[in-house]
């Protein structure tokens, strides 16, 4: 028989383990990066819009401008520079971006008298989003209902990969397809004047939105407790009655969240609209006219502008609006999804 040793306090004494300590600190610090970058995105996207709002006091913004612009090849002599600044002051004083200018209905950033009216761009984005949701929502939601309530196995097993493939299409591929094929097709059918227009863009965009709405709706539908549907079936309701009267209402918050997230995606999408909408900043309600969205405006013009110009700052302003809008939508959607989870927890 072996002689067991007693356990002693010294044996059990707490130890400091360096690798353990470092690993925990490093991992925690790394996790913080995501948060840090969210803050940085907020700060840096908004920061670049600030000069717009300080434009009425040209001294501040112009000093910044002047300083930053010296990095170019041409180094201006002091005299020249003073002259140019004076010139700019004049321009800024006359046409500096006022709220009035931003609220205008013309987007003409490259002209003698630049106009930065955001209205057509905002309306453009809304129009495109609306059109895409108009197509995507019914298709995706009903397809999700089909998967959950009726579909035979083989149909499910065809649909699910199809959705995954669709979700995996790079948006530039959808944009290309819309530009080359869809646009001509739509033009021929409706006999349209413009090949590229809001309708084509929205239709193409719906291809990118469908997977989001489908996935989240399907998730919401399959989260409905089996007991609920079974109770309905047991009461003699048919499958379709159960689907419409039990499943759909119970999944409403989730489906609503799905639509919100779909809108967010549509609103922020760039490449598809950049390629398929014609990009004319017209303020019109006609879906068959070309349109220019906020995202497409940034995408098309940012590479051309000079750093620090008013135009540059206004593009950042558009980005900020885009960011805030999608952020709000996502937050609201999250609340709806949570509520559903809460309900699930409470067991109703």
């Amino acid at each position, binding site marked *: 028989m072996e002689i067991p040793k007693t356990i002693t306090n010294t044996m059990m004494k707490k130890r400091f383990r360096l690798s353990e300590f470092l690993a925990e600190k490093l991992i925690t610090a790394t996790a913080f990066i995501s948060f840090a970058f969210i803050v940085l995105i907020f700060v840096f996207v908004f920061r670049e819009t600030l000069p717009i709002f300080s434009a009425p006091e040209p001294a501040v913004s112009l000093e910044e401008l002047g300083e930053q612009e010296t990095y170019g090849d041409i180094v201006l002599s002091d005299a020249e520079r003073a002259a140019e600044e004076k010139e700019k002051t004049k321009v800024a004083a006359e046409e500096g971006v006022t709220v009035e200018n931003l609220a205008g209905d013309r987007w003409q950033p490259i002209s003698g008298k630049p106009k930065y009216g955001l209205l057509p761009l905002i309306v453009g984005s809304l129009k495109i989003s609306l059109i895409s949701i108009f197509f995507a929502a019914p298709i995706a939601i009903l397809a999700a209902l089909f998967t959950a309530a009726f579909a035979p196995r083989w149909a499910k097993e065809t649909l699910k990969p199809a959705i995954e493939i669709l979700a995996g299409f790079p948006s530039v591929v959808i944009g*290309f397809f819309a530009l080359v094929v869809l646009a001509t097709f739509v033009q021929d059918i409706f006999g349209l004047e413009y090949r590229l227009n809001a309708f084509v863009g929205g239709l193409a965009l719906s291809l990118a939105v469908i997977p989001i709405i489908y996935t989240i709706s399907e998730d919401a539908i399959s989260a409905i407790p089996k007991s609920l549907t079974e109770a309905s079936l047991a009461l003699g309701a048919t499958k379709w009655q159960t689907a419409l009267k039990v499943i759909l209402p119970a999944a409403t918050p989730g489906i609503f969240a799905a639509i919100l997230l779909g809108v967010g995606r549509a609103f922020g999408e760039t490449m598809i609209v950049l390629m398929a909408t014609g990009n004319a900043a017209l303020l019109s309600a006609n879906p068959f006219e070309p349109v220019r969205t906020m995202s497409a405006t940034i995408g098309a013009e940012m590479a051309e502008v000079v750093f620090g110009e008013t135009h540059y700052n206004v593009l950042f302003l558009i980005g900020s609006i885009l960011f805030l809008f999608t952020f709000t939508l996502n937050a609201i959607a999250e609340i709806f999804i949570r509520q559903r989870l809460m309900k699930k927890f409470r067991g109703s």
Partner: protein
Amino acid sequence: MTKKKLLGGFVYGTTAFFAFIIIAAVVIVMTNIVAGGWSSLTKDFLLGSPEEGMTKGGIFPAIVGTFLLVMIMSIAGVPIGTMTAIYLSEYASQKSIFARLIRFAVNTLAGVPAIVFGLFGLGFFIQFIGTRVDGVLYNNGELHWGQPNILWASLTMALLTLPVVIVSVEEAIKTVPRELREASLALGATKWQTIRKVVIPNSITGILTGAILAVSRGAGEVAPILFTGAAYFLPHLPSGLSDQFMELGYHIYIMATQSPDVEATRGIQYATTLVLLILTFTLNFSAIFLRYKLRKRIIT
């Protein structure tokens, strides 16, 4: 009774029809791209450079550029994403405010439009960091880091794909049975030893899946690199991190919308699109396959 049946048939038919529309759309787009690009997809096309103002020749620089982009992106993003996932699933107490803050950040990152990432890359990486680095290193007004280049484009893309990695790795870590963790801890292993020897080896598939999904996403996004590093045309491959680069998605966009004779280069456009599609497809399918294997493990 018959009316009820009729209605039932109608509901069934309608929902089935909409499901069919999705499948049809996928088939149509794919068929069109394959049919349009197949004949131009030659070895010379894949391995050659653009010629005669990009109206002829191949897309080799764009393939290399895309490859470099996703490589640098992964090197930056995958370790950070993996560690964040480890933090969330192994270290964080679910109730802690810090953990909730990180979750909130990851969700928010996932919802930021791609183009806004581009703006951030420009405002932060290029204008804020890059110009300062140039100021310190060169001090003569030369631009190296304070201009769009492959490093900043890749880092911007890494940020965009970070949530993809985090979510996927976390999902994989969750499939590591609690029993294995307990076995390790009960043997007197520390938390970090348990993570290193049990959790990570058993979620390697998931980490790989996350990386692949991120690469696929990164290869397909164009908006974030529009003004952070992608170039219209370059006569030679990037030779350093401060060089610009050509990229497949950007190349498609440029060729389809900006080239002087859009019709003449249709074949090149289609073939490039097909290449990008094949690339993202292969990646997505390997990810789906890996995930499928992972799920099977949970059941058994």
